[in-house]
């Protein structure tokens, strides 16, 4: 537990944590407020109604969540890679190992701290998004009566949990890539390339891509036809290649998560630490 708590403290104080959440929520707020502000000037009533979807509850919940899970996946890969890569680049893993710490335990608990930070980051961004949507609704004179829609609020926890699990898997992927590369920059670069590479590959190999980590992450949150539809249609990897069954996708997310961690821990355990 000492290492886990220490990992959390290190992540809370780390600029990358603040920048990641700041960027994600900043973009979300910007889109919501901008949409609300210009919706009145949309040419046709249909275009105006579509623009206002983002600030109309309860649908806004799903759109905000899908935005967070979509872009959050890319940010999670980068974040996971930055944390793992810096342990090698800064030589701090060396310090822990030379003090007799178990390599696997250290890395596993460091990742556990990352997964908690992912949950906190997603939760924070979601709350900021909802507050921004309420503000947007006020600007656009849209009623907020749907805020307390029981059906939507009832399924949000499950969607959120699935989303957190999916984004954690994406962070694990970045974590593993950076561990293999022993570098922050190489890990981040390879993680981004993987993210967009998967999108690109969807055009040619949809039957394979649907089993790949970003595609299964998106498919795993598709439980009720709301956030699911938005997430899968959000343009991210796997948008056109989905397993269809969210529960099968969730199992595959688990497989990718465990697989990524096994690779990262196995490599760390056997690696010769020269930096």
């Amino acid at each position, binding site marked *: 537990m000492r290492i886990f708590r220490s990992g959390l403290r290190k992540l809370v104080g780390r600029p990358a944590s603040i920048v990641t959440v700041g960027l994600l929520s900043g973009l979300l707020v910007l889109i919501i407020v901008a949409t609300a502000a210009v919706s009145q000037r949309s040419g046709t009533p249909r275009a105006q109604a579509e623009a206002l979807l983002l600030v109309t509850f309860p649908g806004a919940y799903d759109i905000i969540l899908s935005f967070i899970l979509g872009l959050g996946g890319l940010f999670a890969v980068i974040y996971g890679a930055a944390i793992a890569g810096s342990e090698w680049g800064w030589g701090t893993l060396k310090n822990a190992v030379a003090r*007799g710490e178990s390599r696997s335990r250290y890395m596993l608990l460091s990742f556990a701290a990352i997964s908690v930070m992912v949950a906190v980051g997603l939760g924070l961004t979601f709350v900021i998004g909802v507050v921004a949507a309420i503000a947007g609704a006020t600007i656009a004179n849209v009623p907020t009566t749907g805020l307390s829609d029981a059906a939507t609020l009832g399924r949000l926890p499950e969607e959120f949990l699935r989303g957190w699990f999916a984004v954690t898997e994406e962070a694990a992927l970045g974590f593993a890539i950076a561990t293999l590369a022993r570098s922050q920059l190489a890990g981040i670069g390879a993680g981004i390339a993987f993210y967009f590479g998967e999108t690109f590959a969807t055009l040619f190999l949809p039957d394979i891509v649907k089993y790949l980590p970003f595609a299964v992450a998106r498919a795993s949150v598709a439980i009720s036809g709301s956030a699911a539809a938005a997430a899968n249609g959000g343009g991210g990897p796997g948008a056109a290649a989905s397993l269809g069954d969210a529960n099968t996708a969730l199992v595959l997310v688990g497989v990718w998560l465990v697989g990524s961690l096994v690779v990262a821990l196995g490599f760390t355990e056997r690696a010769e630490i020269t930096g």
Partner: protein
Amino acid sequence: MTASPSTLALATRGLRKRYGARVALDGLDLSVPTGVVYGFLGPNGAGKTTTMRLLTGLLHPDAGSIELLGRPFARGDRRRLFEVGALIESPSFYPYLSGRSNLRELAATGGPVPRTRVDELLELVGLRDRAKDKVSGYSLGMKQRLGIAAALLSDPTLLLLDEPANGLDPAGIVAMRETLRHLASTGKTVFVSSHLLGEVQVLADVVGIIASGRLVREGSLETLLASEAVVRVRVPRADSEAAIAAVTPIGPAAAMPPAGNEPVGAELWLRVQATPDRASEVNRALAGAGIFASALESGSDLENLFLELTGGEPLPGSEGTFQGIRP
């Protein structure tokens, strides 16, 4: 060294390590007695840091064995390191955290560390006033001091320090030396790798010299220096044979080859194995033979011993050495 295994804080036997085709360690046998400051000397690329990494489990040996504090140390014996403190190469920290936070987070790894230990160590290394500052703003010397504090976190029985004087100012070097001597006086063992011969000469009780991945000499500093006492005289090359004959009754003598790229000139150095107090005798013997030395040196410093044992030249496959400007 002839210390019995039970009195050794650290021992290696036949330690081997390769990096691809390059042999970093070629059967290293170290014997570090308990309660001493051990100076581990060697030129760049001789294998000092590789040895330190092997001793802390960062690398795994290709062959050979390690004993830490009287017990075997291999893969899976990481808990043995709970009693070991180490500073290997440059100190490594989270740049965005303060000095205190870095020590606190490091204390979360390995063996348990008392809560008050971090502040005690910050005081010891003179960083208490800067403890809240981010490490990214620290100078090299401050990072080095923090690294020494990190090595001392678990109040280790065996302390492994790789070039600990790097970046320290003269006052810092003196303070570090006193701290390490104090630790040794309390029964702890301090293993210091360095290429600063003067520093090791004033700090170490026992010295090991490594070259090309092998231990070429090991023993108490006193014994090693006594065995290497020499008087050197510079005489005309034409008179060298006569000079050797004149001084041989005082001690074995031989002509020294030109150092490095030094051109062969009209004079050369003779090396007479004799204690410094016999330098005047050597001079008198030469004068008696009608040979007048243009220079005379005597001494038994570690530098002479080091250069003699390591050749003072880059070793095959090593990092090389600074060549200097030769007119």
